[in-house]
Structures are given as C-alpha cells and as structure tokens.
C-alpha cells in the first residue's frame, strides 16, 4: 500500500485555508464571508485529521468533532446575525455595519 506523506495533507489544508482567507478578505457580502469562514474551519479540521492519522490516535478526530460542533453553532448564530443585519441595514454589505468605528 502506498503511503501518503503527512505534508501533502497539511499542504492541502493550508491551501484550502488560504483560499478561504482570501475570500473572507475580499468579499463584502456577509453570507460569502460566512461561507469562507466555513472553508477555513474545514481546512483546520483537515489539519487535525492529518495529524491524527500521523500518530494513529483518535484525538485528531475528536478535535474535528469539536470543530464541527463549533461550526454548527457559529453558522446558526451567524445566520441569525445576518438576518438581523439585513433587516436593519437593508443590505448584506459588511462595510455598512461600521457604527463602531473610532
């Protein structure tokens, strides 16, 4: 059976993370930003799985489960916030929500 070097898994995770990051930074639409955050979370989870596979331990997967839980909670609260923002500001533009500027 051929083996996969750990770094390839990690490079994949890094790439996905970077793509998600680019998107978060570029997008002004809040929903897109949320989607991008999901990509990044997923990438982080991937890194945990790779690490877990390297040591043959279950801990990496446990962490992934925690991440998923967190992502779910985050998405639900995030979407609720998006709804509120849309209702208040009539737009999905994140830059419009700048009332707290110094």
């Amino acid at each position, binding site marked *: 059976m051929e083996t996969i070097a750990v770094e390839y898994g990690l490079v994949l995770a890094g790439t996905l993370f970077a793509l998600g*990051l680019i998107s*978060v*930074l570029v997008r002004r639409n809040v929903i897109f930003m949320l989607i991008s955050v999901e990509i990044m979370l997923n990438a982080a989870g991937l890194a945990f799985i790779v690490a877990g596979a390297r040591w043959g331990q279950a801990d990496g997967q446990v962490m992934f489960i925690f991440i998923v839980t967190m992502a779910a909670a985050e998405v639900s609260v995030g979407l609720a916030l998006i709804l509120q923002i849309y209702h208040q500001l009539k737009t999905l533009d*994140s*830059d419009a929500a*700048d009332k707290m500027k*110094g």
Partner: protein
Amino acid sequence: MIHLLWLIPTLPFLGALTLVLAGSSLPRRIAAIIGCGSIGLAALITLLIGYEFLTTHTRAYHDVAWSWFAVADLSVGFSFHLDALSLVFLFVITFVGFLIHLYSVGFMHDDEGFTRFFAYLNLFVCAMLLLVLADNLVLLYLGWEGVGLCSYLLIGFWYDEEKNGYAARKAFIMTRVGDTALAIGLFMLFGVFHTLDIQEILTKAPQLWSPGSQTATLIAFLLLGGAVGKSAQLPLQSWLPDAMAGPSPVSALIHAATMVTAGVYLIARMHGIYELAPLAQLWVGIIGAITLLIAGCSALTQNDLKRVLAYSTISQIGYMFLALGIGAWSAAVFHFMIHAFFKALLFLAAGTVIWALHHEHDMFNMGGLRKRMPVVYWTFLTGAGSLAAIPLVTAGFYSKDQILWLAWGGAQGNLWFFVAALTGAFITSVYTFRMVFVTFFGEEKTHVGHHPGRLMNVPLIVLAVLSLAGGLIELPHTLGHVTLMSDLLGPVLPSTVLRAGAESSEIVIQLIAATVALSGVLLAYILYIVKPAVADDIKSSCYEVHRLWYAGWRFDDLYNVLIVRPFVWLSQINKHDVIDRFYAGLVAGTEYFGRTFARTQTGVLRWYIMGITAGAVLILALSLVINP
C-alpha cells in the same frame, strides 16, 4: 520692684489685646485711657525699676517668663535681660512712647480708626520692649519682626489711599530683606555656639574666635544686614521716606524714636562680635558715614516737611552707625537717646503743623506760622536747634559733638570719618534751618485751621525741655565733664579708647563743630530769608543734581529695575505655571495617540481580519527568523 519687669511689656500687650477685642465698640475716651494708661503705667514702672537699678548698682537682672521652646541642644526662653543698655532703651520707649500716645489722643481725635490706632501703637510698644529686653536672639527676633508688623500696619493705617498700602508693604518687605540676613546670622551663631542666649554668646565669643576670625566677620556682616534694614541705612534706606504715609505720631514713635534705632541696639548689643570682626565694624562706620551724607543731601531738597525729617532721621542714624563703627558705643546710645527726644519732638510739631493746615505737607505752602502757632514754633525751634547741634544750649550738640570728637580722636577714628561727619553736620544745620525758616517765617500762605489743644502741646513742651536738658547727663571734658551716661553703660559696653596724643585736640574739634553748625544756620538764613532768589538759582543751575537728591539718589529706581520688575515679570510670565504645560503636553500627547489609533478602528470588518492575517504572517515570519 525690679521683679515687676515682666509687667512692662505685658501692660501694652494687654492694652492692645483689649482694644483689638473690644473693637470700635469702645468709647473713645475709654480707648484713650486704656491706650495711654497701659504705656503710662509701663513708663512709671520703668522709672521705678530704673531708680532701683541705679541705686542698688545692679549690673543685670534676668527673668524667665516661661520656657518658649527647647529642642535638642537648642533652648529658648521667653526671658528678659535687663542691663544698662536695655534700661536706656526701655526708658526712651516707654517715656517717649507715653508722650506720643498722649499727643495722639488729640491728634487722632476725629479719626474713625481711633481704637485701632491705639491697639497698633500699644502692640508696637510691646514688641519694641520685647526686642530690647530679650535675653536671647530668638525673642529679639520676635520683637524685631513684631515692630515690623506694627510699622506695616501703622504706615498703612489710612488704608483708603492705595499708595499708603504700598508704602507699608515696601517698608515691610525691605526690612524683611535685612531680617533674612539677620536670620541667617542667627543660624550661623547657633551653629557655632549651640545657644542663642546673647550673654552666653558674648562671653563665649572671645574664647572661640581670635580677632579678625572669618566666621565672626561673616556673622557680624549678617547681623549688620539686619540692622541696616531696620535702621534704614544704605543700601536698604529707601523705605523710610515713603513710610511717612503713616500718621505723624507713628512717624515720631516708630520711624524716628524707637524702631529705626533697633539696628543700633542690635549692633550695640552684639558689640562683642564686632570687636572680634574689625572689618565688619569698619563697614558699620563706612555705611553710617555714607548714609549720613547722602540722606543729608536728599533732605536738603525735599519740600514735604515730613520727608525732610525722614531723611534727617536716616542721616542721624547714620551718625549712630558711624559711632558704632568707631567703637564709640556709649556715644551711639547717647545720641540715640537725644535723637529720640528731638526727633520725636520735631515730628510731633510737624504733625501739628500739618494737622493745623489741613494735611498740607509742602512746607513752601506754609510760612509765617511763628506768630500763629507760638508753642509749636518754639518747641520746633528747640528741636531743630538740637538737631542742628547749636552749641552749648542744646542736647544735640553734646551728643553729636561726642561722635565728631571720637571720629577724629578715637583709636578707630580717622580723617575720612571726621570729614564726613563734619560735612554731615553742616548739611544738617542747613536743611534744619531751611525747614524752620520756610515754615515759620515769611508770610502766611495757608490759613491755620485748628489749634492744638493742651493734650498736644504738653508732650511738645516736655520733649522740648528734654532736648535741651538731656545733654546735661554727659558733658565733655572741656565743659564740666559729666559722665553719667557712659558710667551707666560702662558695665555693658566697653569704653572708647582714644588715639594716643589726641586728647589735647578735643577743644579744637569742638570749636570746629560749633562753627560748622552755626555757619550752616547762617547759610540757611541767607538763602531762605535774606535772598530767597539765590536758593532758586542754585536749584535751577544744579537741576540734575537736585532731581537726583530729591529722588533719594534714585535707589528706588535702581531696585525697581534690578529686583522688583524682574521678580514681577518672572512671576507674571509664569502665571500659568510652565511646569503645568509639561503635564498638559503629556495629556495632549496621550489624547493625540488615542485619536490616531482610534482611526484604525474603521468599523470595516475586513480591515480587522486583514490585521489579524498580517499579525499571523508576522508572527510566523518572526518564528522562522528567530527559530529556523
């Protein structure tokens, strides 16, 4: 009787206290009785004590009222020391003080601050008595500052006039400059002797210091600083003419008879130190000589009757300093006493004139008062004669002649001192009789408003008698040879050593002095009676000099430029405290940074994420660089 000594300062103090507490609610009559009565009683006790002191041949009497404060090796008592020197001062203060109080009852009769006036005056007498009775320098300093306070209050007595207040302030501050020197002198004395008891210092000083010792000289100079301030000598003399803003009795009591001679008292009291510091003593003489000349010149040019007398006072105290400077201790004290009599007399008489002419101060607006106010005229003439040292009949002649003689014939005297004193004597008689002729002769220019009552005349007459007869207690060898005064002071003050071979010239000096005094009178007579035009000619031909002298040699301007203005300028320019600018700057800086960084808080979410990313990049990069 002598154990009643503590009553002498206490009585005026109680008087002052009562008058202050009772305030203006007290009827004038009672205020007058309290004011004069307390001093009168003190004078009476002084006389009794003096009698006992003389008859029992006591050398000194010591009385501790209470221990004032004691810390470590410093122990200061509220305690009195009576010896011949303080007795003379005591006598002058209480007796002349009493006469002036009596006079004031008439003089201040219509003033609304009647009670306040007597309260201050009583307080002054109390402080002055403490000054001369103090057995230690701290108590002396208390009296010293106390008289300063009263002088301040009394110069500014008519506080409605703003300039009176400023004159008072000037007097207080200028004397305080001298006091600072005195205080530093006390610190040094304590540093050396670990005591501030005067007698102890005087006994210990010769054991610790050899003549000419540096410390002794320095201390002597510092004490001289104090004396110069209080006695209005060069360079701190310019407050006294302005101090004439006070009521005339105040000028008579404080600025002629007593307070201004405190410097003389101090130096006489601390004579032991000056004997060990010949340089300082020489400077006492030099200051006296210069002061008597410049003040005399200024007196020549004044028009204000009281200012003439003020400059004359400065000049006469200059004589006393000169006497002290040449070691003629008892001559200085003798002149002090006689001066107190005739100068108080002159001030009171002048006060009466001014009062009678509705506060007219300019003597060229007076004239012809000889007939209108005979009592004042005759008493003033007596005083003036005494001041000008008219030979034989006046007391001033005997006291001043002694100084003149010792300036020449004393071991420490020299030609310069003698010439200065002689010139001063000439100037004195010129300006004195200028005053007499201008004020009392010629035609009447201002109508006499009110005439003095008996209450004001009696003190004048008593003082006039004293300024004539006072000289009889000390007559020179050539004329009767009475030495009551120097005998009395003998145990306290060392006697003056004569220069070898000079004894024979005493009569010559006396003749010269008499001639000079009389020629001064003659000159005044020519200039102001016979040919008044000449006086005006001289005045206009030497206009610049006249102005300089009139302005008291412009010392005021000098101090204004050198000290007062820079101080006020410095103070004004920094009114808002430059140090506070520093803290304000700190606050402004903090606020600026706060605002600047607040601007990074754009409210744009993506910027924050960008920030986080940049931070992550940076941290990773750092970890790569530091730990590759």
